[in-house]
Each structure stands twice: as structure tokens, then as C-alpha cells.
């Protein structure tokens, strides 16, 4: 797996190379890595790449930054439509 063109976040098409470069230059938390690259911000809500993004942060920063701000989980668990979200409870 030396090929840095490997896509880590499929939804937002973020490559391993992008993630490693960003993590190395900013030595930041996973959350900041996510916001700077958009990895994990697409349609699947990070279900595919969350663990990979976390491990890239740890590898690239040699644990020099505390990872007390992990990637969050935001509702809904799976994408749903406005009409389902907006349904009245008594309907």
C-alpha cells in the first residue's frame, strides 16, 4: 500500500496523499484534518473512512498531539429524505 493515490474517503474523493500531506504540515487533530480535507464529510457520514482518518492522524503526528477531540457522530445514522425527517409524529 505505498500508492498514495489510494482514495481514503470515497464520498469526497480524498486521497491518502492529501491526508498525509495535510496531517504532516498542520500536525493537527483528526477533527481538523477532516475539516481541512473534507474526508468523512460526505454522504456516508464517515462510515467508510473514519478509522483510517484517525489512524493517519496518529501515524503522522507520532502522537504528539492529544486526540481528545475525536471525529464526532452526527445524526442521522443513514441519509434520509426531508419528507421522512419532516413527518409529524402523529401521522
Amino acid at each position: 500500500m505505498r500508492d498514495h493515490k489510494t482514495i481514503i474517503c470515497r464520498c469526497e474523493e480524498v486521497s491518502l496523499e492529501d491526508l498525509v500531506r495535510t496531517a504532516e504540515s498542520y500536525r493537527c487533530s483528526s477533527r481538523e484534518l477532516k475539516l481541512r480535507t473534507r474526508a468523512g464529510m460526505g454522504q456516508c457520514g464517515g462510515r467508510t473512512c473514519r478509522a483510517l482518518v484517525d489512524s493517519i492522524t496518529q501515524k503522522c503526528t507520532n502522537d504528539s498531539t492529544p486526540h481528545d477531540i475525536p471525529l464526532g457522530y452526527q445524526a442521522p445514522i443513514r441519509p434520509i429524505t426531508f419528507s421522512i425527517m419532516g413527518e409529524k409524529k402523529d401521522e
Partner: protein
Amino acid sequence: MDSRNTEVLIIGGGVIGAAIAYYTAKSGMEVTVIDKGDIASGTSSRCDGNILAIDKEPGFDSQMSLESQKLVDQLSKELDLDFEYRAPGSILVCESEDEMIAAESWVERQKKAGLSFKMLDRNDIKQESPYFADDLLGGLECETDSTINPYLFTYSLFHGATKYGAKVMLRCEVEGMSRDSVTGLFKVNTPKGEIIAKKVVNAGGIWAPYIGNMLGLDIPIKPRKGHIIVASRDMPVGMRKVMEFGYLMSKFGKERTVDEETDKYGVALVFEPTESQNFLIGSSRQFVGFDTRVDMDVVNCIARRTIRFYPKIADFIIIRTYSGLRPWTPDHLPIVSPVEEIPNYYIAAGHEGDGISLAAITGKLMTELLQDQINTIIPTDPIRYSRFKNVSTIQT
């Protein structure tokens, strides 16, 4: 423990702290910024991103936004890191004759204050987006309004500030603060050591009262919660920011003719296309303390409000939701001001939902205040801390 000295200590690494750090460092002052978490880890990453005049009270309030828009346009050219800046204008849409009448007077007053506003009719609204409900009567437009990505803007300002020598210390919470009555220097205790500062700027946002309390100040800021939905843009819904006219009523706490739940949660439609091809949908306003958990009843209500204005996006996909806390003040204006009773202590907080809009002008003005300049970029009276002196109890 380490001890370090700094000329200016900014407490808060949100967009306000970032803008102050940038302009003060650029002006040649020695600046240190501390934050208890990460850069933009509070309100500045739980919001949408606009520099709006359209929703500001005509006069001082909207002028302040207009000045900020000019500064952000300059920043988009002088900062190295891109922050998705564009200036397509923004619109308000009306759902009743009453709102149309109120909109006309809003436009007249803004034009008198020198801003580029105009009315839109039913046809204009149809041209704006084919997804709008057929019964919308019209609306109004502010031509100069611009849009940015709020956390990228914050990152970019800090990147610029550090190039001018600013120091940024993260995960560095203020644990205590005192002022030496002989030297006038501030001593700030943090987990990373003691910081001695000549001047302190409290840019703590919703936490500004907590920081202020360490020196006995009573800063009237309260968290006002808001929710946002991130939706996937299957088809282009619209090219620029849209709000319902009722948003103004909700923002300024005026009466609206909506159902009970919409009123209770302060729900008003806001639509914002982002550069990532998604779009953001808001909004809500609630006083529920420091709770940042997403309330699905509120999201449910926002989704219904969305379908009322955009019936044809009912089958569009919601990807995620989030909520943030706006630093509210009793008169809806921020505090950007020295504190008379504590020489060399300044406050830059309380921007409610206008922190992104007013960050640049706040940074610029605070730099002028720190340098004791008499001629400032905007008048300082309406945003002075001392205006709250005679307010004994703060009503929400």
C-alpha cells in the same frame, strides 16, 4: 512551570480571536492566542458562513456588515489559504402580503443607509429557483452579501497571523487570572504555564462571561442554540443564500404568524449553497443552556419548514445535522470594547449569529482600540461594554 510574556493575549481561538490576531499581528504588535480546545472548535465550526447585511437592522448594524464585507473581499486577496469566498448577494422571501409591506419598508430604510437593496416580485423569485413554492409573493435582495466557509476562514486568518509572528497555543485553558495593581500586568494561569500579558482581549464567545467573571466582570452573554441540516445537492436548487422574511422576526424576537412548534423553536428557513456542492438548511433559536446535542424535534420542524418553501426538494437527501451556540446579547449587538474599570482589558464577544459576518470588522476595530486610536473604522458607542451598566437583570 514555564512563564511567558506577551504584549497582547487573546483568549479564544474562534473566528473573532482569529481576526483580531491577524490584524493586531499585521500591525506589528506581539500577540499570543490561547484556546481551551482546537482552532474553531466552538461556535465557529457549528454555524453557516455568511457576511450578510440583509438581516441587519438598517443603520449602524447594516453599515458595520458592509464594512466587514469590504474587509473580507480584501482578505480573500491577501490571505494565502483559500476560504471559499464568493459574493453572489442574498435574498429574503415573503409568504404574505404583510411581509411584503414590511419588506418594502426594510428596503427603503436600508437604501437610506446607503446599502444596495431592491425588491423582488413573484417572477424574480421564480427565476431565482424552480424549486420555490408557487405561492411565494416576492422578496428582497441585498446585492453585496457574500459567503465563505467559516472554519476555513478561521484557519486562513490564523495562518496569516502566525506569518506576522502571532503565537497560537491550543488545548490551553484559562484556569485563573489576576491583575497586579502595581504593574497593571495580567497574570493568566494555564496548564501550559503562566502567561504575563500587558493587554488581554476576551474573545471567548459563549464562554466570555466565565472568563470575565475571573476579574469580577458581569458580561451579559447567553448561549442561544441553533440547528443546521446538511443536505446533498442532487440538482442545483439555487445559487445564493435565501432566508424567509420571518427570520428577521425570529432573530429580533418579534411576533410571527406561524404554528406553535415553529414559534417555540424559533424555526425560520435559511438556505445556503456551499462550495462542496451540498447545501445547508437552517435555522432555529432556543435558550437551552450549554446543551449542544441535536434535538430531533427541532430538526423535524426545520425539515417541515423547508418543504413549505421548497416543496419539490422533499425527496432530497439529508446527510447530517449539527447544532451550535450563538453568543447572544440583550440588544443583539456585539461587545467590542475596552473595559473602563480594568485598564488594558478588552472584550470582543457577543456577536450572536453574526460572528462570521462581523469577524473582520471586529478584528480591525479591536486593533485600533488596542493602539488607542481616536479615529476608528466604525463608531464605537453602540458596541461599548458600558451600555449594559444600568441593566440590572438581563431578560431573555
